[in-house]
């Protein structure tokens, strides 16, 4: 256990020392400040009625959070992609792997460390954004903790994908593939929405299947639902938009997401065990 914690501490230390956290936080805080200006303009627009502002602010928040979910996904795949492969290529891992610990401890320690960094980062930016929107426009999402939770879960899925790919592919290839998978999963969600809008079952099926293969878009829809005013959901306003969710992910789906992460971590471990250093 103490050896795993040593790897966790090393991973967090690396993220801090190499200014990874500082860089992501700097960019994110700048975006939050920019969004504050935007929400202020939107809330005080003379061309919109108070009802229109009440509908537009949550939608703008969803759009901002969509952008932020992309940043989280990019962060997760960026920090995970060099975790194994780059350290093997550079030779750093060889001296650690010859110590009396199992490779599972190295992998788990890295996953926990990077997961911790991602959690702290997502929590900080979510809290900051929600406070800013509340102060500037007076809107509080119905389930801010849920929104953060789904967003973080999405990030952790991407982190796990990155770790899995990193046991076999180079850091560059891992990053590219992970981001491409994230984009493909989101696109499958859009295709599913179009299928629902135009009553094409085959297109709806694409989304249903994709959500199980890579559950990022399914979790993203949980974030949307947690951010939407319940009046929008009750009246199905915007149900034709890909930025609308009619309900939260069910428990069975969340359990599937947990199983998915565990299975991907196990696959990472098997791949790492078999990898020759």
């Amino acid at each position, binding site marked *: 256990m103490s050896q795993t914690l040593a790897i966790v501490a090393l991973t967090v230390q*690396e993220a801090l020392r190499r200014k990874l956290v500082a860089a992501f936080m700097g960019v994110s805080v700048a975006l939050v400040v920019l969004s504050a200006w935007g929400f202020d303009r939107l809330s005080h627009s003379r061309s919109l009625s108070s009802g229109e502002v009440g509908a537009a602010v949550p939608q703008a928040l969803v759009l901002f959070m969509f952008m932020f979910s992309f940043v989280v996904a990019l962060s997760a795949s960026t920090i995970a992609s060099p975790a194994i492969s780059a350290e093997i290529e550079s030779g750093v891992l*060889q001296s650690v792997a010859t110590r*009396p610990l199992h490779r599972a401890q190295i992998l788990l320690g890295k996953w926990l460390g990077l997961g911790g960094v991602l959690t702290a980062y997502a929590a900080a930016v979510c809290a900051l954004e929600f406070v800013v929107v509340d102060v500037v426009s007076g809107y509080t999402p119905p389930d801010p903790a849920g929104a953060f939770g789904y967003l973080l879960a999405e990030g952790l899925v991407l982190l796990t994908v990155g770790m899995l790919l990193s046991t076999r592919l180079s850091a560059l290839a891992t990053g590219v593939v992970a981001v491409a998978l994230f984009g493909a999963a989101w696109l499958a969600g859009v295709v599913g929405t179009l299928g629902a809008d135009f009553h094409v079952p085959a297109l709806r099926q694409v989304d249903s299947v994709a959500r199980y293969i890579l559950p990022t878009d399914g979790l993203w829809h949980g974030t949307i639902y947690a951010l939407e005013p319940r009046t929008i959901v009750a009246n199905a306003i915007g149900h034709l938009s890909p930025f609308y969710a009619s309900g939260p992910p069910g428990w069975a789906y969340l359990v599937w997401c947990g199983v998915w992460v565990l299975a991907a971590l196990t696959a990472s471990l098997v791949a790492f065990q078999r990898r020759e250093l």
Partner: protein
Amino acid sequence: MSLGSWADPGAPGAEAVPGIAPGSPAAQAAPGPLPPPDAARPPPGSARSPAVHTLELAKSYRRTVALRGLSMTVARGEVFGFLGPNGAGKTTTVKLLLGLARPTGGEAMVLGAPAGHVESRRRVGYLPELFRFQHWLTAREVLTLHARLLQLPRRDRATADALATVGLAGRADTKVGTFSKGMQQRLGLAVALVGDPELVVLDEPTSALDPVGRHEVRAIVRSLRDRGATVFLNTHLLEEAEQVCDRVTVIDRGKAIATGTLEELLGQRTSVRLRVRGLPDGWWRAHADLGAWSVEGEWLRLAGAPPESVPELVAMVVGRGGRVDAVVPEHQTLEDRFLELLGAR
């Protein structure tokens, strides 16, 4: 084939030793007691077990054969040189011993446990050929990390001792990223030494060091032997091996081609070079009984002549009316022997 009979270096399948006859003192020269062939396998970690023992160890990467049936034994407490040209399979062997790669055949035991086992790794220190460390950490932090992974009780002391041993005590709190290559190799050596391991595996430990650094590494290797540790020195620097190793194995194309102490490999291969005037050409043919004569320009070489025979040789030349301008007794160097072995492949 099982390592249950691992103490039998002369068993079928054991390494070929060109130039050293099976059963000769050279072939049985592993220092330290080895259990008889029928002895039960000692418990893991027992001091009776050799530091390293491999039997028909093989490794292939798809169509490339890196190691083809390597059998060798490294006794406890010796400095063992593992020599060979580039691509001979040295680093592959080290990786197999440390569990960084898996063999495709044969078996290997390290400190009485299967190679790569957590228990054997607890007592092994390793300096990789490609020594790279977390460049955002200080030297002290790197060593503290390894002390934590080793679960050492007194980490501060262990890290301070290791840094002092390699001459980095004054740079303990400097970031590794600012270190020169030589300093990084010293740090790698400190990492290998932390926790006083029973077996220290050094893969090309002086490749980035200046002559002073090399001298210091040799001193460290000798001090390791003095405290009873085993050193497995993987190198292609023959002079280095000649100075510190008790025993060596020469490997080529994935197979051991010679094993023995330096005396066994080199001891009988002496010669005397003479520069003589005042005697007719070919005078030496009458003395073929003394050894194999050959002409090298103005010099004559008498292969096989021990250094003690110099006074007699000089007296013989003078007795025949000649003059000896110069006489040079020669020992074959490890490099000569190494090239000879590789030339005979």
